[in-house]
């Protein structure tokens, strides 16, 4: 970090965007930027988690023909606050046979990556903690680390249900990482940059129109990675009690609960940045557009959660390897051809072509998948 500081290393004259704060109180603008954005990100993540928990509980309650929390504060908006107060003050239990160190570390290891992802998410033009030129690669790399935390939780709890849940999570993440990355590569080809900010700037039309299949793949694989329904096998209530956090209580459970929703917000934020034009939008301020889009994507997750049944573990694997992976490869190929054919800007005619490709591929693969992946696989 010190080497990146222009005050120390004058060989980086244009590394920083022009609207960064200058030197104040004898501290260089670099460090002010770092401090302010770290605070903003932490506050943003915490408030967004509270907000999406409220949205999920109210929204899902309405889908289930009931009301949802409405007694705690006006319209029940303080419900997540009450939950937080209560959970944080609960007793912290570590099972006697647990691997104490691993048990303690697991929530932290799981929580840190969820926060780190937001370092490269732009809230406005250039308004981000670190405009890494390998932004999306960083996201992909960091996001997988929380699996380590989940597996530590499963292993350290010395509980069979926890271990089953953690194993399922590892298997799911390993499988779904590949289609997820392949879906991102399509976007990178069109945008011509790995930097998140550059990707947003390249979206004169949102990439969801140019990459509808990529959006679908990313959304599905993202849902699978963060245990959202219909891929929520890792903490499947009706099967393995509470999955990897069965033995966690109090503050440490709160961390896992936070991770679950922080990751959902992170995936929603990445989808917003990559496919929905990020902070771009007319009239309203950029950060507001960003929040609206994140909430919209999250609402899609809530919707699937309250509608769809859960898939089985072998079907989960089959879906990743037999459906998403080939489709993602074909999508990448089609995108590459298009980028080769129109090197400068993609014309509007690409939009209907890509939608047609998506429809044909999904229908075709659904037929093939029906034959190869239907029902039970040999174990």
């Amino acid at each position, binding site marked *: 970090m010190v080497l990146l500081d222009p005050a120390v290393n004058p060989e980086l004259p244009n590394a920083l965007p022009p609207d960064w704060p200058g030197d104040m109180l004898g501290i260089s603008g670099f460090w002010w930027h770092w401090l302010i954005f770290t605070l903003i990100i932490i506050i943003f993540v915490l408030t967004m988690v509270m907000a999406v928990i409220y949205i999920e509980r109210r929204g899902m309650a309405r889908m289930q023909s009931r009301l949802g929390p409405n007694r705690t504060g006006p319209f029940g908006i303080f419900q997540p606050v009450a939950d937080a107060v209560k959970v944080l003050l609960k007793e912290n239990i570590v099972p006697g046979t647990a691997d104490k160190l691993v048990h303690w570390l697991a929530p932290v290891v799981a929580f840190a990556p969820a926060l780190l992802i937001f370092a490269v998410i732009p809230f406005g033009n250039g308004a981000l903690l670190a405009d890494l030129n390998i932004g999306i690669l960083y996201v992909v790399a960091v996001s997988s680390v929380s699996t380590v935390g989940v597996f530590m939780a499963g292993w350290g709890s010395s509980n069979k249900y926890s271990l089953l849940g953690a194993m399922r999570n590892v298997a799911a993440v390993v499988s779904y990482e590949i289609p997820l990355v392949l879906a991102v590569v399509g976007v990178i080809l069109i945008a011509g940059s790995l930097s998140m900010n550059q990707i947003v700037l390249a979206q004169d039309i949102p990439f969801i129109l140019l990459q509808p299949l990529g959006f679908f793949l990313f959304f599905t694989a993202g849902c699978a990675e963060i245990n959202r329904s219909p891929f929520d096998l890792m903490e499947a209530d009706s*099967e393995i009690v509470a999955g990897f956090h069965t033995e966690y209580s109090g503050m440490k459970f709160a961390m896992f609960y936070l991770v679950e929703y922080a990751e959902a917000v992170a995936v929603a934020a990445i989808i917003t940045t990559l496919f929905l034009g990020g902070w771009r939008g007319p009239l309203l301020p950029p950060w507001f557009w960003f929040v609206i889009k994140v909430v919209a994507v999250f609402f899609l997750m809530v919707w699937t959660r309250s509608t*769809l049944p859960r898939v089985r573990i072998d079907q989960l694997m089959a879906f990743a390897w037999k459906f998403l992976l080939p489709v993602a490869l074909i999508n990448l190929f089609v995108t590459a051809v298009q980028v080769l054919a129109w090197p400068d800007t993609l014309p509007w005619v690409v939009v209907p072509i890509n939608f047609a490709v998506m429809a044909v591929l999904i229908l075709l693969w659904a037929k093939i998948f029906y034959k190869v992946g239907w029902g039970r696989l040999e174990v």
Partner: protein
Amino acid sequence: MALRTEPFVLNMGPVHPSTHGVFRMRATLDGEVVLDIEPVFGYLHRGVEKLAEQRTYTGFIPLTDRMDYLASMSNNLGYCLAVEKLAGVKIPERGEYLRVIMAELQRLASHLVAVGAFLNDCGAYFTPFLYMFREREKIVDLFEMVSGQRLTYNYMRIGGVSQDIPEEFLPAMDKFLATMPGFIDEIDRLLKENEILLARAKGVGVLSSENAIACGVSGPVLRSTGIKWDIRKADPYSIYDRFDFEIPTGEAGDCYDRYRVRVEEMRQSLHILNQARKDIPEGPVRADVSHLVRPPAGEVYGRIEAPKGELGFYLVSDNSIAPYRCHVRPPSLINLTPLREMVRGWKVQDLIIIFGSIDITMGEVDR
């Protein structure tokens, strides 16, 4: 490097989110694959059969409510029929019609819970379950009108029913009968063709018809294997021979068929209800029988088609006011007999839905 694996024992229950009460399984797993399970019962064993010997014939009716607490009316009906068979009581027409109406409403309510719980076990996060409960509340309201209770009705008596229905009942039932078919269509639209549900439930937990008969399985589980066996048709009790209805059957005997059979049975129950509603006569609802029934010495087996299967009461009388021996044939317990064979080789997740698709009530399994 040679990889050494060994199976491990996972204890599911008695307190587990999807064991429908306090069922317990000791499952031996090889990773995610179920090698074997051992069901453990008795966590709700309340000694109902012993208590029956200490109570009068009428005094046992409240206990039948609490056996299969999702189908209290059916339990009342089964028990009362057995005692009436023993004592030779003739029931007035209106009483018979009311009994059929209550039993069919109860079948609807029980199947609603069964289907909802099955879909919940599949992982549809509470949504179908709550929709089913919304509709079940309407049926519970009807029961509350006639009996004043929401779950344990204690409505039927030896010789009829305890009291006539209030005058608001039939209009309310008409309203319910008008809306219910639309609701069944609605849940079918939601989930019947759902790809994930098909992948999860089709071909899973197959029970062959030979095995079903050998294990004495009854009710929707038996019918899902393709056997057209319904006691309402095969051995009509009460006035079921007057109604026209179909026996829905499955083909493969898998989880999906069991779910479909229940949904179709709900439609048939509505059909019966419509006929009974049309024909219900005026008159007394209860024969003139003393509350202290003293049936002649002897033994009898009365059975009905309860929502879960063949519910029977085997009564031995010694001409006193209490049964000498009262044995309940619990459909839930006997339907669990083939569970071990059905789940072997499947995954943990399948174990849950196979178990859920059998639809048991622990109060009846353990009694």
